[in-house]
Every structure is written in C-alpha cells, then in structure tokens.
C-alpha cells in the first residue's frame, strides 16, 4: 500500500473537442502547466502536477481533443498513440474521460472505445447545468452501472465535484477496472461500419435509461422558473435539441448574405486591431530598445563590444519582443471568437473558396493576420486540425503583404511619383496588395498540387466541424491561453530570432573598417555617421553583396542594393535605413524618405553614367519584396510551427527565387517596352 502512495501516478484527460476537458485541466493544474510537443511532431499536449491540496501525487496530461481511438490523420495518430504509451510519461494509470452531459449520445462513443481498448477509465460528466436548463438530469449511478466504470459530475469552472473526482481517481487507480488485460489498438482496416453503428445503438439505449426529467421540490419551482429551468413531465425527454438562443443567433450569423456581412465586419475589426492597436505598442517597444541601445553604446563608446551589446544583443532582444503586441492581441481576439463559438462558424462561411486551393475555412484568420505580420499568423494556424491544410497555410503566409513591407513600398513608390501626384501612391499600394493576394492564391493552388512532395503530407481533406452553442466567453480562459501562446513564442521562436539577428549584426559590422577620409572639422554625429557608412560598405554583408553582383546585374541592380537586401533579412523595413547608410544619406535638411529618394535618383552603376535606379528597377524591387521571404523571424517561427527546417528552407528557396524570377521579368519586360 505504501509504495502505491509514494508513486507519482499518470492521469490522462481524454475527451472530444468541446467536452470541457481543458477547463477541467486548468482547474486541476491551478493553470500552472507546461505545454510540450510530442517528440518529432507538431502536436502539443499540456502536463502539470496535480495541485498539492488534492493530496494525490499525480501528473495530469491534457491530451488533444479526439473523437475516436481510430486516428484519421497523422496528428490524431500521434495523440492516440500517446494515450497507449506516452513517449515521456509511459502508460497512464487512469484515464479521466470528459463527457458533455448534454451530448452523451455522441460523447459516450469515445468512452465505450476506451473501455473496449482496456483502459482504466473514470468518466467526468461535465456541463450538467446545460442539461438542467432543458429540465433534464442524468443519474450518474445508473450511468456508472451501464458503462461499467465510475461516473462523477464535475464543473471545471466552479470546481464543483472535483474533490469527489479526485477521491474516485485514487479509488480507481487502486482498484483498476482491468487487471493484466492487454490493451487493444484499433486499426483502421479492422473497423467495420456495423461495429460503429452498434456502439451508437448501445449508447442510445443507455441515454434513454439514465436521462430523467428533473423533478424538483415545489418550493424552489418558482425560483427555478426565474432562472429558466422548466419542468414538464409530459414533455418528450428531448435532450437532443439545440438551444433556441443559438438557433436564433445563427439565423443571422449564418444567414446566406447577412452572415457574410457580419463575417467581414468581424474580420475587419480583427485585422484593424492587430494592425492599428498593436502599432503604437510596437513603436513604443522599438523606441525603448533604441534608447537602451543608444545608452549602452554611449557608455561603452566606439568599440565592437559596445556595438555587439547595443546593435546586436539589445536590438536582437528588441526584434523578439516587438512581435508580442500583435501576438497578444491576435490571440486575445481568437480566444474570444473561439470561446463564444463564432470561430467555427466563420470557418464554415469561408470554407468553400479556400477548399478550392487545398486550404480550409480555418485558414482564413491566419492568412488575414499575415497582412499584419507573419509571426502571429503562423502561430494562429495551430487552430487548423488537418495537418496538410495547416502546413499549406503556414507555407503561403509569407506571401501576404505584411506591415513591415509598407515602409519599403512607400519609399519605392515615392521614387516613382513626383510629389504632386502623391495620391496615385495610394492606388499603387492597393494594386500591390491585390497582386499579392492573387499571387498567393495561385501559388497556394500550385503548391497544393504538389503537396505530397513539398509539404510531405496527404491528409484526406475534410471539413467536419462542430458548431458549439453560443456562450459568454470566459475571460480567464482566454487570458490563460493568450499568456501561454506568448510564452511558447518567447521560449521556442525567441532564441532563434535572437541568434539570427546577432548573425546579421556580425555580417553588417565586421571586419569593422574605419573611415579612410579625413574626419577633422566634422561634428561628432557626422563622424559617427561616416564610421557607420564605412563599416557597412566594408562589411562581410558588402562582400556578400559584391559576390552576388552577377546575380544583381541581370535585374539591373548592383551590390549596394544587394547589401541592403541582405540587411533586410533582420527585418524588411531595415532595407530603408540600410539604403540610407549606403547612399550616405543623413536626412538633416529634408525628411529621410525624400533624401533617400534624391540620393537614389543620383546613384549610378559604377562609373558608366548609367542610372542605378530607374522606374523599371524600382518596379522590379517592389515585385521582389512582394514575393521573396526575407524575414528571419518568419523563418524561425515557421521552423517552430512546422517542427523541422524543411518547410522554412523550402519557403526561402521557393519564394526568393520566385521573387528574383519575377523581378527579372518585370525589369527586362519594362525595358523591352521602352520604360527604363
């Protein structure tokens, strides 16, 4: 007995999506859990130690929601396999199966399978209050007898019944249902239709026998009427009806035309929030880190260590933290939409057009977020359950024109247009966005055709989605989920972004050549500027830029553009400041943008007298920025979210060569038409 107490048990929570599993897990863990990837997979599970006050030494695992023990996709297979034998924690001593009391005719299916597979099962009956609203109640003793395992009613939001769930858990661990029974693994091919149908027939019988009308003492009847609990013994025991409020709201939100109207309103609000609300916060972070970097730089002085600390380490940390406002806002909104039940409906509305290019209705929100920033967008793709569709969504997200490209486009458009025709710039920007949408659709379609080779999965594309009843979102749940998404980003993608930023810093700093020109008579700022200019022009990035000169020539550009493109790998908007450095622009007299444009207009290729920047090459650059993936943070997050380097490397190769190819066509095409 003693050694039973000493051992740390493993309890796994299993349940279909929307069965209250995660709510229960949050209660049991006191919201203090770790989120871990199954080895070699992108599927995540959460694990925690059961809170001390429950007096049971146990690890609790919150497994991904599953419908059946027969996996339907590679991700589900990982989740199901881990139930039998968890790669880190072994085989569970107990499975707590969550069942939505108002959904027992569907949710008992998994319980039946778990029992048949030989697991030690305890049923946690959740959402009994929803059933009560229909005037019904379940007799858990009868249900327990029917199923052959214990049943406890719990409410993960209030903690009601959790204590008896824990004492029943200990009881179940000490007296397992099956002793030395070999566990059955269900294989796809052995499962026949009849077996499935029979399980459901069995459950329908159970449902009839254990669900009763809620009979209440006369006194509280009036009180209950107020909180809308009605009992009518004459009425049919109808636990299989949808609540009326949900049906009424859906008449509007799923309406053929109005539904689409509300969908666009909600999505526009989502997009504006991540775009506009996050913007000032991002500027704030940016400014703070700039001040910090400047302070450190001034304290140490002109030395590579000072520069490593300020431009390398501090800026690197800044480039990790800069994404937090967008990630937080996006996940807050997504959490609310998911918790109210709308997200599933939005996915349904937009599924058809997206399915044509191998995506899913759930791809919409991540793709839309991609127009703000690819980092939170790729993370949002986690809501897509189908692996192929998730990978394909992540794959094309870099094609969405993210906000970091705007400063670049604005500079290039400013070059093309005389100041008095600035309004045309708005139209050109719109054209760039529309072209980027069209090209991403076309490319998604093409990649979908080759999906077996490019993203290496061939999931059966399907869209089977439960539309949960509308309910008021729970702030605490949404906040916890957002907090964990940010934490995962910081822990998993943060170090890669940081490391890559330092590499870019090293490339643009070393070998640190000092100005050859005479600096006497120049102000301190001018000297510092001259040093920066000289350093970048003599840096390894410049060497690389010169090395790729043969590649730049066909698209009408030279090594100076090359260096700026390489520097832009830190973040696309760096392209602008890098151009300013390389063309020795100070921006003292006029705005920086106008000064760069002036300098660009004067720039010549070598000593040939031929202009470097022409309308043709500028259009080429715009096209290059539309396609090419030159954002190391995106690469880092893509690596994290897809679980390997395969997809991020393919993304760099495919998108950057596409960018180059289209730039070549644009520049030479325009030249052929006489536009130089």
């Amino acid at each position: 007995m003693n050694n039973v107490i000493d051992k740390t048990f493993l309890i796994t929570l299993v349940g279909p999506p929307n069965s209250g599993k995660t709510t229960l897990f949050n209660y049991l863990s006191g919201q203090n859990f770790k989120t871990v990837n199954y080895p070699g997979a992108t599927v995540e599970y959460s694990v925690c130690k059961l809170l001390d006050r429950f007096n049971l030494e146990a690890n609790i695992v919150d497994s991904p929601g599953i419908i059946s023990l027969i996996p339907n996709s590679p991700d589900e297979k990982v989740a199901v396999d881990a139930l039998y034998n968890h790669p880190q924690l072994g085989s569970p001593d107990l499975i707590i199966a969550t069942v939505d009391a108002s959904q027992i005719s569907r949710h008992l299916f998994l319980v039946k399978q778990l029992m048949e597979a030989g697991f030690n099962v305890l049923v946690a009956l959740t959402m009994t209050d929803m059933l009560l609203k229909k005037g019904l109640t379940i007799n858990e003793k009868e249900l327990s007898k029917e199923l052959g395992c214990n049943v406890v009613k719990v409410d993960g939001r209030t903690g009601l019944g959790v204590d008896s769930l824990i004492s029943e858990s200990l009881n179940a661990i000490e007296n397992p249902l099956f002793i030395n029974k070999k566990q059955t693994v269900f294989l796809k091919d052995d499962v026949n239709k009849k077996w499935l149908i029979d399980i459901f027939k069995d459950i329908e019988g159970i449902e009839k026998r254990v669900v009763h009308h809620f009979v209440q003492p006369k006194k509280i009847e009036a009180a209950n009427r107020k909180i809308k609990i009605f009992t009518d013994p004459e009425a049919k025991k109808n636990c299989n009806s949808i609540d009326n409020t949900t049906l009424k709201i859906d008449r509007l939100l799923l309406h053929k035309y109005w539904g689409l109207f509300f969908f666009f309103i909600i999505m526009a609000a989502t997009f504006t929030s991540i775009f506009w609300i996050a913007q000032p916060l991002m500027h704030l972070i940016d400014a703070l880190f700039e001040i910090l970097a400047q302070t450190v730089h001034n304290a140490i002085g002109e030395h590579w260590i000072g520069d490593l600390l300020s431009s390398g380490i501090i800026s690197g940390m800044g480039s990790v933290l800069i994404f937090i406002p967008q990630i937080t806002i996006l996940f807050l909104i997504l959490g609310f939409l998911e918790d109210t039940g709308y997200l599933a409906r939005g996915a349904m509305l937009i599924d058809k057009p997206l399915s044509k290019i191998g995506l899913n209705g759930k791809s919409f929100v991540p793709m839309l977020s991609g127009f703000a920033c690819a980092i939170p967008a790729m993370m949002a793709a986690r809501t897509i359950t189908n692996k192929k569709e998730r990978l394909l969504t992540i794959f094309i997200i870099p094609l969405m024109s993210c906000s970091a490209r705007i400063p670049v486009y604005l500079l290039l458009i400013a070059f093309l247009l005389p100041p008095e025709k600035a309004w045309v710039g708005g139209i050109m920007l719109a054209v760039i966005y529309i072209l980027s949408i069209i090209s991403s659709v076309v490319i998604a379609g093409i990649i979908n055709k080759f999906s077996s080779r490019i993203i290496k999965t061939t999931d059966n594309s399907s869209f089977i989605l439960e539309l949960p009843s509308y309910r008021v979102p729970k702030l605490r749940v949404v906040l916890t989920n957002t907090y964990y998404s940010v934490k995962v980003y910081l822990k998993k993608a943060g170090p890669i972004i940081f490391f890559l930023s330092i590499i870019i810093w090293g490339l643009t700093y070393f070998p640190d050549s000092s100005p050859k020109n005479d600096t006497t008579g120049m102000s301190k700022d001018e000297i510092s500027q001259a040093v920066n200019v000289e350093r970048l022009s003599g840096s390894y990035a410049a060497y690389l830029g010169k090395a790729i000169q043969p590649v730049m020539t066909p698209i009408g550009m030279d090594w100076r553009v090359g260096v700026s493109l390489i520097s832009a790998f830190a973040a696309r908007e760096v392209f602008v400041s890098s151009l300013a450095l390389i063309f020795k622009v100070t921006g003292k007299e006029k705005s920086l943008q106008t000064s760069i444009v002036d300098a660009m207009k004067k720039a010549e290729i070598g000593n040939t007298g031929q202009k470097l920047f022409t309308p043709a090459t500028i259009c080429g650059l715009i096209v290059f920025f539309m396609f090419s993936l030159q954002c190391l943070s995106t690469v880092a997050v893509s690596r994290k979210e897809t679980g390997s380097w395969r997809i991020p490397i393919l993304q760099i190769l495919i998108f950057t060569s596409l960018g180059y190819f289209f730039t070549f066509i644009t520049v030479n095409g325009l030249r052929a038409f006489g536009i130089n």
Partner: protein
Amino acid sequence: MKTAADMINGEKGIIRDIDGSHPSSRRILEIGFTPGQEIELINKSIFNDPLAFSLRGTLIAIRKNEAACIILS
C-alpha cells in the same frame, strides 16, 4: 437516392445508411451520423457549401461532398 446534400434549409430527414466507400464515411459515423438518426439542415453557407446539420442536440458543419455519403430514407 436522396442524400443529406440534397436537403433544403429547414428540411428534416432520417438517416438510412452511410456510404462506406466515401473516405470520410468513418468520421461521419463516429461523429454521430448513424442510421436511424433524425437530422435537420439548419443552414447552408454561401456557395451552398458547407452545410450545418442539427444532429443529436448539436450543430455540425460538413462539406457538401461529405453530406453526399449520408443516405436518407
């Protein structure tokens, strides 16, 4: 042979069988579309696809081609 894909908004029907040759047929069964169950088409998305059915007290959206494997009596 009438299938769930042929239903109109608000129409009710009883499932007779599930076409086992469809790749999604097992998942359709597992989610609760079993013979004998009554389903109601609650909503169609624009483009008439996917379809939202009321089944066993919940709403479930499936694509039209998946609904086509649900044979009605």
